[in-house]
Structures are given as C-alpha cells and as structure tokens.
C-alpha cells in the first residue's frame, strides 16, 4: 500500500470519485424532474461530437474532443427542448428521438471515416479506460506534496475535479430556485423565477459533467451515476438536502468499492485477470440501489 498504490490506484480512484459525485449531484434534480434519462441521452450524443472533432482536426486530442462533445451536447439539449416545446410532447419522447438519432449518426460517421490507426472506437466510448490513468511520477505518499511529481498527474484528475467544483458551485448558488422550481414550477414562475433558463442551466451543467467524465471513463459510469446514487438516496431520507448528501456518499462509495473489486476481486476468487473498473463501479452503484430498495427507510414514498 505504498508507492505502488499512490502511483497506480490512487489517481484512478480519485478520478472515479470525482466523476461519480459530479454526475450524482445534478442527478438528484434530474430524477425529481422526471428527466433522469437526460444523462443517458448526453452520454450518447457526445459520440458524434467527438468523431466530428477528430475528422476536423485529424488527431485524438483532449481539447478538440471536449469541444466537439460539448458542442454535440448543446445541439442535443437545444433540439430536445425545441422538439418538446414545438411538438408539445413528453420530454422522454423528445430525448429518445434525439439521442438515438445522434448516436446512430456518430456510429455511421465512425464507420465511414478512417479511425483504424487511432484509439477511437465504440468500445472505448462505452467503457473508457480508468485503469490506464496512472501517475508514473509518484514515488510514494510524499509525492502528493511534491510539485514536480504533481505536475505529472493524469490530466483527467484536475479536469474532473474542476467539473465537480463547477457542479457543486452551481447547486450551492441556485439551490433555492432549483428546489422550488423542481417541486412546484407554477408557484416558482408566479414568484417571477425564470424556470425555463434555470432548467436549461441544470441540463447544461449536467452535460459539462458528463462530457468531462466521458473522455476518462466512458459512458457506462456516467449513465449509472446520474441515476443510481440519487435513486438510492431518495429511499434513505425525506429531505432534499439529506438526499443530495446521501447521493454523494453512495457515488463515492461506488467508485472506491467498484475500483477495488475490479482490480482485486477476481484474484480473491482465484481468477487471474482483473475486470473493467468502469463496469464494476456501475455495477456496485446498481447493487447499492438494490439494497436501498430492499431496506431503505423511506422507500415507500417513491412510486
């Protein structure tokens, strides 16, 4: 548990925690607004954005991919809102149309373009590669206070920490209007709140978290973390602030337990290879949800 842990396991675990919590926090509000699938939608629609960014630049670089993904997410969010408002149909249906169409477009683009010599494929988009985000400059716990070593941290860690900070800041700042408009939009509008832009801002912040996470860990974790921790937390309490706190705990727990189980679990049962950390983290979050559904003190409150 010394140098090897700090170099090989600590960065992926920390990145996993940041991803999980950054997605779980806005997930609470999306869930209560019956928009939980929007996380699913976002993580699908970023694919065409990333492929387009690759086609335009010719390289798989973080910057252009993030911009492409963010652009695609914004296009999707606007398209969903436009279809929902102009077509006067349910939000779920609008999302279903937009995200399947855009994901399909992304797959077609990926097939038609020559990406065989770069690390860009559907599998990478789904699972990411959390295990590869290691910190080669680390020589032990002391490296955490050594500026030269810290410079070698995987770039995904500060990026995800920033995304998490942004999400937390947004929720802290707009907590009251978000809670009010989520519970009773009519009343909130009667008070003069601009609930339309506020709802859009929530979706945009969720999209930023999803896009930042996508590159590091793929879409499986993102989809799971938008829904599972918040849904499990809802069954633990009847207060919104407590629910959000529970969801952060569940998300972090999923990341830690999932990563450890993926790395060492197979060894414990005698198998030789480890399994996908992203898959295991998502699985653990699902197990926590199942436990909350069986034994959570307030599960009857949820229909």
């Amino acid at each position, binding site marked *: 548990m010394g140098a090897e842990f700090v170099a090989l396991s600590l960065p992926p675990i920390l990145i996993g925690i940041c991803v999980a919590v950054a997605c779980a926090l806005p997930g609470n509000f999306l869930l*209560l607004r019956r928009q939980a699938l929007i996380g699913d939608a976002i993580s699908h629609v970023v694919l065409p954005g990333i492929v387009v960014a690759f086609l335009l630049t010719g390289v798989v670089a973080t910057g252009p991919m993030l911009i492409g993904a963010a652009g695609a997410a914004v296009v999707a969010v606007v398209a969903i809102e436009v279809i929902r408002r102009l077509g*006067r149909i349910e939000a779920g249906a609008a999302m279903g149309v937009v995200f399947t169409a855009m994901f399909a477009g992304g797959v077609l683009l990926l097939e038609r373009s020559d990406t065989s010599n770069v690390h860009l494929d559907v599998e990478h988009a789904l699972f990411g590669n959390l295990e590869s985000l290691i910190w080669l400059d680390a020589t032990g716990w002391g490296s955490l206070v050594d500026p030269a070593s810290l410079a070698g941290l995987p770039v995904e860690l500060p990026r995800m920490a920033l995304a998490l900070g942004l999400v937390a800041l947004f929720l802290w*700042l*707009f907590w*009251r*209007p978000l*809670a*009010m408009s*989520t*519970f*009773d939009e*009519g*009343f909130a*509008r*009667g*008070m*003069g*709140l601009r609930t339309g832009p506020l709802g859009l801002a929530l979706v945009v912040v969720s999209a930023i978290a999803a896009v930042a996470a996508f590159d590091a860990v793929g879409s499986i974790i993102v989809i799971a973390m938008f829904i599972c921790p918040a849904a499990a937390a*809802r069954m633990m*309490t*009847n*207060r*919104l602030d*407590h*629910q959000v706190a529970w969801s952060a705990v569940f998300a972090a727990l999923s990341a830690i337990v999932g990563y450890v189980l993926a790395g060492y679990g197979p060894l414990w049962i005698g198998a030789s290879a480890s399994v996908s950390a992203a898959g295991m983290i998502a699985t653990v979050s699902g197990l926590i949800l199942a436990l909350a559904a069986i034994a959570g003190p*307030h599960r009857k*409150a*949820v*229909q």
Partner: protein
Amino acid sequence: MTLALVTAGAQPDEAARRASPLAVRGLTVSYGQTPAIFSVDVTVRTGAMTAIVGPNGAGKSTLLKAALNVVKPLAGTVTVLGQPLAQMRDRIAYVPQRASVDWDFPTRVIDVVMMGMYRKLGLLGRVRATHRSQAMACLDRVGMADFATRQIGQLSGGQQQRVFLARALAQEADIYLLDEPFAGVDAATEKAIIAVLKSLRDTGRTVVAVHHDLATVPDYFDEVVLLNTQVIAAGPVAEVFTEDNLHTAYGGRLTTARADPESVAG
C-alpha cells in the same frame, strides 16, 4: 359571438384599471388551435373576495396562470395597481392547484412554507430564527403548526391544501390568487381556509379564487366573474350571479352542475 358583446360593449375604465389590484385587458391564451381564454377583461375590486366561476374547460385556471405570466399569453396586458406585473411580483401570492405538484417530493411542511419567503431571502440569504418563527406563525394560522416537520406526502388532501395556503401567507402579499382551494378537501379544511381568506379580506387584502361549487358562491364571495373562454358577466354577486347568466355560461350543463358540483371542477 353574442357572448362577446357583453364585455366588448363596455369601455375599459382607465381610472378603475389603475386603482385595481389586478386588472387584465384583452388576455388571450391558446394551448393549441382553439383559445383557452379569449380577449378577457377583468378588473378586480380592492379588498373584495372574487370568485372565478365557469364550466369545465372554461379557462378559469388559465386566466389565473396568464395573469401571473405562469403561462405566456398570446395577447393582452396585466397591471397590478396600474403598474406592470414584473415590478409588482412581491404584492401577489399564488396558490396553484394541489394536484399540480408531486407530493412525494422529498421535503417537509416547514420547507414548503419557507419557499414563500424566497423573494425576501434571495439566493443565499441566511434563514434566521425570525424567518422560521414567521413560517410557523403562517402554519399556525391554517392550523398546521403541529405538522411542521412532517414529510408532505404524509398529509391528507385538506392538510396539503392548508400548507399551500400557509406558503402564500408567508409571502405577505396584498393580492391572493387561489386555484380551486376547496377541490377535494374535507369540510373542516374548507371552513378553516374560508376563515383565513375572509380575515385577509377584512384586513384590506384582495382575494381571487377559482371556484367550482356554485352553491357556496353567495356565502363565500363578494364578486363573481362568470367565465366560459370569454367573460360572460362580472360584478357583485347579487347583480351578476343570476339564473340567466349562469345559463349563458354553463349552457345545458347547468342542471348537472347544480346536482353535482364536482362534475364542473377543473
């Protein structure tokens, strides 16, 4: 189209509009092809209780929502004491239909009442003991002080309606707009709510409520607006709440409406 003549014939009285706590002119809302309300003029009288009455689908709720810009009107103006609505938000409290929200939402009674203080507290203003005791006082007025820490889903329909009223009281407004405050509540709650509304009126506040029980209109209200997409008639209950006007508003459905008030809810 003969219905339109009733309102179109009267010239809007500019002085009355400026003095009114809530005046709408030419308010028109459409959710699809047909208008929900069409060219509605209403001038609410200060310090009175006004009922908005009409058959199912007459646009009663829509009229309230459009007056508050909760739904965007296609046309028309709304003034509060002669000023545009946007500058007068603090003066108006709104009680939406109880059925319009998810009562499984993870929140307690006291938290719902505190929402009424948002314009005082702002985004990050600290909740002080005075705010809490004020919220408790509002709950006490509707007889719900003992339920402050209950989850809202554990309340009966009548109790939920009282909590909504307490939230409006916490706004300390001058004008109270209520959407079907008596729908699906028990008799004790109806009594408690009407007592609070009358005390508001008796202290100079203005109350406007969408109401579906025709039998109680003369007991509860001073003024009535008969609505069926357009305004059929509006004024003091004694003058306007007549057999003829009701027939015009409800058409053939009046007999059903009388026999079963629930059937005209909405």
